[in-house]
């Protein structure tokens, strides 16, 4: 709208396929990255890092993981938190049991373990579809939590099953301050978002969407359905696993298996419903919404309803509002907040014309 598109055209398919075709968008994006990496650590305070930015980033990442599976590949899942738990506990154990395991490599192996578990619970997806698949993901949710609490080995025989973060040191730099944990989370999230973006814009992403939109037709044109679905489970769980490790180590510091219960899975599902299924940007929007709304509500009630509503009621109120919002979005904007942004972008591209 305010920037000129004219004169920016592609002379190769490679250039045509890039993320931001316009240089203004590219520079805007780089500026945003620079701001997040360079300016925010100096501008933010501990409250912002610990209570808002880190959970926001981790939840965006978890939303991304689920979005790949549900929004892109069309396989609905209620077991996201289980894969986060696997990632967290696996990363913990890799760190604990292998001497000198670098932190990020531990995260990576945590993600890989989650991916393997994801594949196991994704296997039924060839034979069963839709709601029936919920059973498989719910089984993952319950089995994983049970296994992690039942067998002390996973939490190094901690009496309450709690695991604590290893020292957050990468190449000699300590990342355990709030700003450091923020940077660690941001770095991992940026890398994984880049990774996921590339996937959904590649052949694999197209196959996922084909399976999502009509799997019979996908099979007829030669798309290997099982392999495509399993890759969705694996990559989705990989990202969820790393999100889980970050949740445990960069956000909470300590976590028990029940920190990854069914309501966490619901929370992640809500992120992608509100943010937008089948959208990369939507994960950020949905996560921001989920993180900020409770804060907003408690601030509002502290200001206007001080003494009238007790905290327990506030939680109930929050539940009602979330539920209502979910329904509202499904009715009014099934493609979520990302769709609103996209509509705005499309309109502003042709502004001041209407169509």
């Amino acid at each position, binding site marked *: 709208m305010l920037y000129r598109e004219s004169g920016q055209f592609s002379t*190769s*398919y*490679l250039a*045509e*396929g890039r993320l931001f075709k316009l240089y203004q968008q590219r520079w805007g994006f780089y500026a945003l990255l620079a701001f997040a990496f360079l300016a925010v650590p100096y501008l933010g305070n501990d409250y912002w890092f610990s209570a808002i930015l880190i959970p926001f980033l981790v939840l965006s990442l978890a939303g991304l993981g689920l979005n790949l599976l549900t929004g892109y590949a069309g396989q609905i899942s209620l077991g996201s938190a289980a894969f986060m738990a696997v990632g967290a506990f696996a990363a913990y154990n890799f760190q604990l049991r292998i001497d000198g395991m670098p932190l990020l490599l531990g995260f990576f192996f945590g993600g890989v373990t989650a991916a393997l578990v994801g594949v196991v619970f994704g296997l039924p997806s060839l034979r069963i579809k839709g709601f029936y698949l919920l059973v498989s993901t719910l089984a993952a949710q319950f089995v994983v939590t049970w296994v992690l609490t039942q067998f002390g080995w996973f939490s190094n025989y901690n009496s309450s099953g709690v695991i604590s973060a290893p020292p957050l040191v990468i190449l000699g730099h300590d990342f355990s301050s709030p700003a450091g944990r923020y940077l660690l989370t941001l770095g991992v999230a940026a890398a994984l978002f880049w*990774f996921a973006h*590339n*996937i959904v814009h*590649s*052949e*694999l992403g*197209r*196959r996922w*969407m*084909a399976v*999502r*939109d*009509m799997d*019979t*037709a*996908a*099979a*007829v*044109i*030669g*798309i*290997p*359905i099982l392999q495509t679905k399993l*890759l969705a489970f694996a990559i989705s769980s990989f990202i969820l696993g790393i999100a889980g490790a970050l949740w445990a180590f960069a956000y909470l510091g300590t976590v028990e298996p029940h920190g990854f219960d069914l309501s966490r899975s619901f929370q992640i599902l809500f992120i992608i419903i509100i943010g937008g299924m*089948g959208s990369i940007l939507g994960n950020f929007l949905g996560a921001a919404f989920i993180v900020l709304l409770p804060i907003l509500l408690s601030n509002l009630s502290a200001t206007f309803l001080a003494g009238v509503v007790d905290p327990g009621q506030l939680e109930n109120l929050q539940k009602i509002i979330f539920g209502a919002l979910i329904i509202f979005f499904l009715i009014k904007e099934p493609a979520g907040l990302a769709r609103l942004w996209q509509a705005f972008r499309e309109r502003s591209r042709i502004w001041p014309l209407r169509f």
Partner: protein
Amino acid sequence: MAGAPLLELQHISLSFKGVKAVTDISFTVQQGEICALIGPNGAGKSSLLNVINGVYPPDEGMVGFNGNSYRKMQSHQAAVQGIARTFQNIALFKGMSVLDNVLTGRNLKVKSSWLEQTFHIGRAASDIAKQRQKAEEVIDFLRINQWRNSIVGTLPYGLQKRVELGRALASEPRLLLLDEPMAGMNSEEKAEMSGFILDTQRELGTTVVLIEHDIGVVMGLSDHVVVLDYGRKVGDGTPDEVRRNPEVIAAYLGTSH
């Protein structure tokens, strides 16, 4: 049109929950011809297409394709062998753009792995460009350039039919199965679609088996007509032969047209 047939159906029977859909059907399709399957609704035409590309396994009979015989063709195997198809009720990926739909048609031609594509290494760059170019050629062939980036779910019906043909063509098939490619079109659109089908056969050498109700279109388009009625074959030959076949006239041409 001499030589071994490209497609050979031998004694195909198929039933759903005990109801016979197709009974003992045999016919052959020569390399490079356009073969039309005609017959009233419920005659088993779509079921037959579904047998050919492996959506339904036949109860009895064999499908011969390109010199090999199959008891049951898997959908994926059919695609690998070079059989592409379109569906009666348009089976496009509605949430994807025209270009992406056509690109999915090329999924079997992709050489690079998903990791190469994700990290832009190895064969990815040349592969992506190559697939895109091939898809663009199909888009150009079918004159859908201006809708390249439109989401197919938002396009009018006739265009969706064209995009679906495009997705099938993108796989560079040897055999193209078209299930009522002109259903619900006006005469102008039908003529256009007929042109595309003829060009596909002539320019690309693709063998076509199609189901169509418009007898005028069928007679003008096809080299070979197979007539079905209540799951049985009642006629098989050139359009002229079929037109003169009394059984066909009684079963089909006489009654519904």
